[in-house]
């Protein structure tokens, strides 16, 4: 919830943005850090994790402390990387991974009965990893502790991104534009547009997407099944782009422009371009911190395909601790590999004519939307969906 609650606007966004604008430059990072702490505590206590969830604020404080010791080529950066992955494993993947060995929870010695996810863990850990790795490679400066805390505790982007980069955020934090009227006008408009998209489109589609369960699929007429999945494809786009609109608009009220997450992804004519326009801050993170370190495209061809599959496997796993998310990620990895092979086949010439482009768009759109089946349903239900769709 959070962005569609009054609490977010009345208790946090408006007061924090106003204080930030009125404060001296040296105080501004601390206003973001302080309001971010309150935001994390408040929404952890009221919506996620309760008191133990709120105690996870210590993760941010510990990260703020240890990050001060990150130096280029230093082993402490590796400590930062390993501990961040451990945070993810403990909170997000513990039950899933141990469940692969002991499927029955009662027989699983590592099973965590009251497991919860600290607010925004999937997103803030990726920012921690980026900073540790970029400090190791000397690709970003240290900043001071207040600036780093402002970076990791900036509440408009804390819960679900866009995933920021420190070297991009820091100059903006240090040089807030004077034209606060422009920022307020654009930020306010963006927040309202995001809320309207969420309420009027995404939430309306829930009436259709709710049917994506085994009982309804079993009873439905075959012709309606693609429409339900299409509704999910539209809903997830509108829902997450609306969320990103509100996050980017909220950040703009502070005078800070954070990265965009979407750029008309469903208009793209191939899967590679789709991923360049869908959840852009995550795609570029995976490109820079997984695909390229694995060798990227500068290795032998079979390795390139393997790198694509590994990157999208991680993307799938990041999206959720479940086998269906892994299947979804690997499917996209396969689609990216097929597209790469198609683009680089002997004699390949990209066509600018309408019909081939329209066909290419249609194939991409249908493939992406069919793949959502493994995102919104468990494997068993998704396979049943396809059996009913194809066989009847």
């Amino acid at each position, binding site marked *: *919830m959070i962005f*569609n609650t009054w609490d977010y606007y009345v208790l946090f966004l408006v007061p924090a943005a106003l204080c930030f604008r009125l404060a001296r430059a040296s105080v501004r990072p601390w206003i973001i850090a302080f309001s971010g702490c309150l935001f994390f505590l408040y929404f952890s206590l009221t919506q996620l994790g309760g008191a133990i969830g709120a105690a996870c604020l210590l993760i941010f404080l510990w990260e703020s402390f240890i990050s001060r010791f990150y130096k280029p080529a230093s082993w402490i950066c590796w400590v930062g990387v390993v501990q961040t992955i451990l945070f993810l494993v403990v909170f997000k993947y513990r039950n899933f991974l141990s469940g692969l060995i002991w499927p029955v929870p009662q027989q699983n010695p590592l099973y965590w009965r009251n497991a919860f996810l600290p607010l*925004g863990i999937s997103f803030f850990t990726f920012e921690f990893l980026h900073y540790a790795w970029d400090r190791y490679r000397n690709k970003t400066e240290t900043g001071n502790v207040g600036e780093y805390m402002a970076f990791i505790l900036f509440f408009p982007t804390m819960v679900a991104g866009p995933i920021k980069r420190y070297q991009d955020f820091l100059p903006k934090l240090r040089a807030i534009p004077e034209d606060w009227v422009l920022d307020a006008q654009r930020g306010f408009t*963006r927040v309202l*547009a995001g809320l309207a998209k969420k309420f*009027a489109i995404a939430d309306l589609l829930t009436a259709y997407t709710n049917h994506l369960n085994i009982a309804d699929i079993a009873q439905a007429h075959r012709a309606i099944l693609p429409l339900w999945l299409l509704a999910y494809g539209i809903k997830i786009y509108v829902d997450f782009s*609306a*969320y990103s609109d509100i996050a980017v608009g909220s950040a703009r009220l502070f005078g800070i422009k954070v990265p965009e997450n979407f750029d008309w992804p469903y*208009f793209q004519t191939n899967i590679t*371009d789709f991923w360049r326009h869908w959840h852009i801050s995550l795609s570029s993170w995976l490109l820079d911190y997984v695909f390229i370190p694995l060798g990227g495209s500068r290795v032998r061809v079979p390795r390139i395909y393997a790198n694509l599959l590994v990157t999208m496997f991680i993307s799938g796993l990041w999206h959720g601790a479940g086998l269906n998310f892994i299947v979804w990620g690997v499917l996209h990895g396969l689609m990216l590999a097929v597209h790469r092979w198609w683009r680089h086949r002997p004699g390949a010439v990209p066509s600018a004519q309408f019909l081939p482009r329209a066909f290419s768009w249609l194939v991409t759109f249908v493939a992406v939307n069919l793949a959502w089946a493994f995102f919104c349903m468990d494997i068993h239900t998704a396979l049943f969906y396809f059996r009913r769709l194809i066989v009847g």
Partner: protein
Amino acid sequence: MTGMFRIPYLQRVMEYLAGEIDAPPEGFPVALTNFQFWGLWWCILVGVIYIFSGQSSKFIYIDF
């Protein structure tokens, strides 16, 4: 602007109305300083939010 549907003008109008870009597309008659228009536009958005609120569900991408 890439993609199948090369209607950049319409896309830029929508981006401008949604607060994504700062400058209006060439020829678009509404400047940022036109407070009557933006006041009316905000009222429309608030009206849409009000009409459809109350059915709100969780955002999909908040730790799923």
